[in-house]
């Protein structure tokens, strides 16, 4: 393979991309950001793992002569990545920041910078060599800058995944990270200039040139970019010509800053930052570049970093202690600094600590900075390996520690704004065509009058897989995706109050459950899309939501239901049937539909007594003004009776009970007969029994909320 460099390069890229995807996905499954797995995949390909376990294979796959090719590709990847980071940087985050955000963001830079520089006093005689680049000043400034970075993209991803972006924590953290990003790159530009020229005079000249360049970018290139946007709007699409110009601008800007002496990455970032924001133009450019950058080029950068990382150099306990010290100082500066600043600004301590741990995420940005430091010769091999470990540890630690500091129940408490008493329905919508029927049915349960309930329409998008550079987390979540368009239009026609929620999800069932808890929904109303004769009718996402959701769940099988006018509730006495009665009562009160309760049971001595209990319950739920019709039938085959009767109704509301052949087969393979054969629309409901168990005694508010007729 060595004889054919092109073949070798292709093989290298295949191995790198495949391993990066696999390890990245494993880490996603473990609840970690994908970037942690990708960073680790890079290290696995280097001398620390592959070179140690199979030195022959390592030498064959990554011979020294091939590394320059990988180096260029990885540099191109990082230039594109930084351009995308700049592109996604929302200037509103920098403009509209409050006093607290200024304080926290600046402290989160100053504290780790100072501690990083102070740590150099200890590390410098131990881990640095007497070379030109490694003067104490250059090393101290570089260590300070490297310690003070925050992985803005990873942070934005974590906030979105945990639904934290609309909380105080999320808003403060994302603003601070944006400020940190910009500040850190400016500081780094100065440090690079200083390291290259060694004397302050050289650095000041470079910094002055850089300042002139920044001004030129804002006052010359930015208006030009706006003209490009106009061209895009006029043509109505992103032409290849416009893309070519944008790419030329990005690469040209990178070349100018490289020439000035502040590194090409700064120019790429700056070009992205001056592009027009919040428009489809930028979104389309971003989408065009994203896949190649994230799937192909960034893994090469991770691999190239991994090939330069020699964890084996840390071969004495002393060096591992030094590594631990670096991790400790990094966390102390970033986590401690941000937390204390947030606390001083009046944010409660628990939330302050959550902000601190979010700001402590370093991720890919740290890797970018460390590679610059290594290229400049400012850090030694061992320090590079130590700092890579620090970046991995701080990034991987974020999610677990955040879960400890700020568990989901606290998030739910912060987001809960709904006044008690109003009935609320969460509708997860996967496909545009299912939204209208669901909102119609939900609207029929909300009641009328001032205490009318509300509907949340939830659309979980498949995540833009890497999302490595996304910053505008909030923007994406408030944007109304296509899947909810039909639903919203229908809701407006029906005068149903709907709020939309949309965010990327890698685990749809989990996110439905969490959102239901966060919004304190009374009912999750799901549609059904599988063919009804399919295996496990109530399986997959529906199954998991039904079994794990801590609120009531309904699955609606729509057979062309308009507004329900005749509703049948088969009743056998279980808690799920009781919920079916409650919901039918709501529908009756909201829409005026006639509700029939069908008590069906096999003939037995207790059947009559049970029928009376059911009749009493119906009397409680349905007011005297609009009582439900009550019928009692004794039959050996309750399911057959229900199916026979269902033809006279346009909606059947039924509990997930064994009597109806639903409960025992919920997780099984046999299709549920009622669901399959029912001629009318069917709402299958499952009562959250944990919630039912927590219901306070009659007369207290929660009970009232459970049983209160709609519209009261």
């Amino acid at each position, binding site marked *: 393979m060595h004889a054919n460099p092109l073949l070798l390069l292709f093989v290298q890229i295949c191995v790198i991309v495949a391993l990066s995807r696999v390890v990245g996905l494993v880490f996603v499954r473990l609840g970690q950001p994908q970037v942690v797995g990708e960073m680790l995949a890079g290290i696995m390909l280097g001398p620390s793992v592959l070179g140690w376990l199979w030195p022959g294979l390592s030498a064959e796959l990554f011979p020294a002569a091939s590394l320059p090719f990988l180096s260029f590709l990885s540099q191109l990847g990082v230039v594109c990545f930084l351009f995308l980071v700049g592109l996604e940087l929302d200037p509103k985050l920098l403009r509209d920041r409050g006093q607290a955000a200024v304080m926290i963001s600046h402290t989160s830079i100053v504290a780790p910078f100072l501690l990083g520089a*102070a740590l150099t006093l200890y590390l410098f005689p*131990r881990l640095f060599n007497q070379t*030109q680049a490694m003067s104490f000043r250059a090393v101290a400034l570089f260590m300070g800058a490297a310690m003070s970075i925050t992985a803005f993209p990873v942070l934005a991803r974590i906030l979105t995944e945990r639904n934290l972006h609309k909380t105080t924590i999320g808003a403060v953290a994302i603003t601070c990270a944006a400020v940190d990003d910009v500040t850190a790159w400016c500081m780094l530009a100065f440090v690079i200039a200083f390291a290259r020229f060694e004397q302050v005079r050289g650095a000041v000249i470079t910094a002055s040139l850089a300042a002139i360049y920044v001004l030129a970018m804002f006052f010359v290139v930015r208006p030009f970019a706006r003209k490009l946007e106009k061209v895009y709007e006029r043509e109505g699409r992103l032409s290849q010509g416009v893309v070519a110009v944008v790419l030329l601008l990005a690469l040209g800007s990178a070349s100018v800053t490289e020439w000035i002496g502040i590194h090409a990455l700064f120019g790429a970032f700056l070009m992205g930052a001056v592009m027009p924001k919040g428009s489809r133009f930028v979104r389309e450019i971003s989408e065009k570049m994203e896949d190649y950058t994230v799937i192909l080029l960034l893994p090469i950068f991770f691999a190239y970093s991994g090939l330069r990382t020699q964890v084996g150099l840390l071969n*004495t306990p002393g060096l591992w202690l030094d590594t631990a010290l670096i991790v400790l100082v990094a966390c102390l500066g970033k986590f401690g600094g941000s937390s204390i600043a947030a606390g001083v600004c009046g944010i409660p301590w628990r939330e302050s600590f959550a902000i601190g741990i979010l700001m402590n995420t370093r991720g890919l940005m740290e890797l970018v900075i460390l590679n610059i430091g290594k290229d400049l010769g400012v850090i030694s091999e061992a320090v590079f390996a130590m700092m890579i470990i620090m970046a991995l540890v701080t990034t991987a630690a974020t999610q677990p520690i955040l879960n400890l500091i700020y568990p989901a129940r606290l998030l739910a408490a912060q987001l809960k704004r709904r006044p008690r008493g109003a009935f609320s329905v969460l509708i997860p919508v996967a496909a545009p065509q299912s939204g209208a029927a669901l909102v119609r049915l939900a609207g029929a349960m909300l009641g009328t009058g001032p205490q009318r309930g509300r509907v949340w329409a939830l659309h979980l998008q498949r995540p833009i897989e890497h999302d490595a550079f996304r910053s505008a987390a909030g923007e994406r979540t408030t944007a109304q995706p296509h899947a909810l368009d039909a639903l919203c239009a229908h809701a407006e026609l029906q005068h149903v109050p709907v709020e939309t929620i949309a965010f990327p999800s890698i685990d749809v069932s989990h996110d439905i459950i969490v959102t239901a808890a966060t919004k304190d929904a009374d009912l999750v109303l799901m549609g059904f899309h599988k063919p009804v004769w399919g295996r496990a009718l109530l399986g997959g996402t529906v199954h998991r939501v039904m079994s794990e959701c801590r609120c009531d769940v309904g699955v609606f099988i729509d057979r062309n239901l308009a507004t329900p006018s005749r509703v049948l509730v088969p009743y056998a006495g279980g808690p799920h049937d009781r919920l079916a009665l409650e919901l039918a009562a709501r529908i009756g009160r909201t829409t005026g539909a006639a509700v029939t309760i069908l008590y069906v049971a096999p003939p037995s001595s207790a059947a009559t007594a049970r029928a009376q209990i059911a009749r009493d319950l119906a009397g409680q739920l349905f007011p005297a003004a609009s009582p439900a019709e009550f019928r009692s039938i004794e039959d050996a085959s309750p399911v057959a009776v229900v199916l026979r009767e269902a033809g006279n109704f346009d909606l059947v509301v039924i509990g997930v009970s064994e009597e109806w052949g639903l409960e025992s087969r919920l997780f099984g393979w046999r299709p549920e007969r009622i669901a399959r054969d029912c001629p009318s629309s069917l709402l299958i409901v499952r009562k959250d029994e944990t919630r039912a168990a927590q219901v306070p005694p009659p007369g207290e508010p929660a009970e009232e909320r459970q049983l209160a007729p709609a519209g009261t």
Partner: protein
Amino acid sequence: MSKTHATYIAMVAVFGLGLWGILRVGATLQAAKYVAGDWRVRWSNGSASQHLPDRLTIEQSGRYLTVTLRRPESMGPIRLRGELRTSNVGQGRSDLTLASSDGRWNMTATLDETNQLLSGHLAAPQSYDWQARRILAPPAASH
């Protein structure tokens, strides 16, 4: 002036003074002498040292060193790890003390003031004195 403004100003002042102090103190510190790279070795024991290579490679991370003596493939390389200690900071001699992981090989050496000559002793099943000169000039030293 609000409490937040006062805190902010204090923070910036502490940062400025702190960084100034750190850079001042740090200016007196010296990193480890640069010994990394390839060195041409001359053994003093004549024929007894024929199986030893005429080149050694030093990898360096600060004062932590790894020295590799590449012998013919059948014998495998000798790899020693150790530290560099400078007795008279920045000016005088620097001493290298290294050992192989199995403890069979021990090496001591001294780097002269010009940074170009290593003189040492390799203790193994047999003992050898040696001198080594840099093959490539080291990068410029820091200020």
